[in-house]
């Protein structure tokens, strides 16, 4: 019974887990710990809200919403990053 209550997570750990949380990939116990942190941390609650908002906005975007020069710049950056020249 004490497992859930005894393992608090930090703000940094929450940030690392947020994608898994949003994808429903956390175990029941980890999800409980995650949400217990949110109950007491207004900053992380706001962070989660912003993440949800960002995902919702991103879903509405299509290729056409991006100006060609911005798309080219982004692709160039991704290629550099993949090649390891951008850190």
């Amino acid at each position: 019974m004490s497992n859930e209550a005894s393992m608090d997570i930090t703000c940094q750990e929450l940030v690392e887990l947020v994608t898994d949380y949003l994808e429903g990939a956390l175990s029941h116990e980890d999800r409980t710990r995650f949400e217990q942190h949110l109950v007491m941390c207004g900053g992380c609650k706001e962070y989660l809200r912003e993440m949800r908002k960002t995902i919702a906005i991103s879903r509405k975007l299509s290729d056409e919403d991006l100006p060609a020069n911005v798309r080219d710049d982004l692709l160039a950056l991704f290629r550099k990053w993949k090649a390891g020249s951008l850190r």
Partner: protein
Amino acid sequence: MSAMICWRSSESGKQARYGEGMIALKFLARGAVGPFTGFVWPSPAGSTAGAWVESPPERFPERGIHACLVEHLPYWTDDELWEVELSDEKILRSAMQIVASRGRLVERVAAWTPRLAQEFGQACALKARDRAVELMKQGTRLAEAEQLFACRSIAELEKVARPMSAQSKTDSLSNIAGYVADAATFARISDVATASYIAAELARVTSGSMQGFLLERSWQGRWIADRLRLAHGSPHVSV
């Protein structure tokens, strides 16, 4: 783990709106909004319960309908408290909550008000104060124990405990005074979730085991149940 535990309000005359499911409790943010998901729960209309909300079976229990028995309440305090009906043959029960795949709001628990929430936070801070007073007496810090005990308000408790906590970073009694000051601070600003957590943490630290934390949370659950007049005398309810 499945549970066949029922919770029913001690008030009679409301049974007509309930179905055959298990009745539990659920904290929500203002406007019947899920505090983490932002999901707006369908509210009851008159004597008709809200629409059923279902989670995908393949995502159970990670994305189930989460709710509380009385003993779970202090972990999840929020703006609104609702009775929720859970319809499920398998209901997962864990230390802090129960989870079902289907649920609906039945009725708001009107007795859970901002004022009662504030009183709950204050009760937790005062319980932390009483624990600190006992330890200070045992540690021959009688004058400080009396100062803490004489506090007549949460603001005064915060004002008195805070300087005690600053006396020495390595002294355990100063550290305990720090917990009391923090609990009082969060109670004063009505962050009752944090105030109650700090009180439970103080119990863990001073008892030297997680059992202290859990016992304090149980006391907090009983406090809420008593003030909301929940039927914790019922054989169906586990507090």
